[in-house]
């Protein structure tokens, strides 16, 4: 009986844990979407097209946001690229979103979650 209780308890914790993680990341994706498309926020869409139905007047200065998991198997590398694209290419037109405090660290995390779906 004790074994059963603790097994249930573990399962319960695991269940609750994953539910929290799930809603947390959905909220983050939503926030990332708002930042990505918001003109006075990240305005990422000004340069990068993305296959989200809400996309309006996307630019093409930068590459399209597509196949992100394949292009960046390591999510941290994608984050680093957004934080400061000039680290890899000093001539990059992309503003260093983190290095120049254009977005906060949390906002960058949210954008990473959003675009990592595409």
């Amino acid at each position: 009986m004790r074994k059963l209780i603790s097994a249930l308890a573990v399962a319960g914790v695991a269940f609750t844990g994953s539910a929290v993680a799930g809603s947390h990341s959905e909220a983050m994706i939503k926030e990332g979407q708002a930042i990505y498309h918001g003109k006075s926020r990240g305005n990422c869409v000004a340069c990068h097209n993305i296959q989200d139905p809400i996309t309006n007047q996307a630019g093409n200065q930068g590459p399209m946001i597509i196949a992100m998991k394949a292009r960046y198997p390591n999510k941290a590398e994608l984050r680093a690229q957004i934080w400061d694209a000039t680290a890899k290419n000093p001539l990059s037109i992309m503003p260093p979103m983190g290095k120049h405090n254009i977005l906060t660290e949390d906002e960058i995390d949210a954008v990473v979650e959003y675009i990592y779906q595409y």
Partner: protein
Amino acid sequence: MNIIKSTLLGLSVAAASQMAMAATTGATVATVDPEADRIALQEYMKNRFPDTPMSEYVNGIYAVDAASRAQWEEIEEFPPYELDLEKGEELFNTPFANGKGYADCFENGGIGIRQNFPYWNDERKTVVTLEMAINECRMTNGEKPLGWKKGAIAEISAYMAYTSRGNEFAIEIPNDEAKAAYLDGKKFFYSKRGQLNLSCADCHLTGTNRLVRADLPSPALGHTTHFPVVRSKWGNIGTLHRRYEGCHRDSRSEYLKPQSETFRNLEYFQTYMSNGLIVNGPGARK
């Protein structure tokens, strides 16, 4: 995926090397060669837009984007700067309180001389722009200077450009001090700045004719030929330095003031790049 990656890498290397090509001649007075810079910029544009004749670059984005051009041609059927030209001519011909006028301050009575501005003034060791000369003419004759960005100064400048339409820009760099001013302008053009870390070249060389939202940045070549312009966004006529200030502000920099030394040097650099192109100001832009 490796193909995508290497293609993307290839593209960015190509863009970087093309950009390097357009500014090959060095960053010191000893090594910079304005004429080689001018030819390199033309070559860059020829590679990017093989179907665009060199003489078309006086028309900005309308030289390279057919859709924008069609809209612009409709606008030009009833030029939005016509009233400004009339006012400019009237202001130009209205005598100052002392009886003298603008015609007394300029070569050839101020008619057909736009292509010689800006020029290096060796006595004053500075670049003199047309707008600066207009205001200095006023002050020499006891009048108050005009605001630099819009209104009367843009109208007078528009009229003076209009009387020079078709004349080829012929900017001279007579000595090393002038070359240093040119170099200062060139450095400003290619240097990244502001919170957005943007150089003029980022948008108007590498990024020209590529979309920023719904906007297409114009090619850097020929930038200065058609000013002053009536810009739809402004809703009235404005000077080149008004545009410089706005562009500089858009990079989220602590932007410079119109007719500051650096902006004058930038105009000197950009207009030298336009040598051989014709004056076609005033213009209409989106």
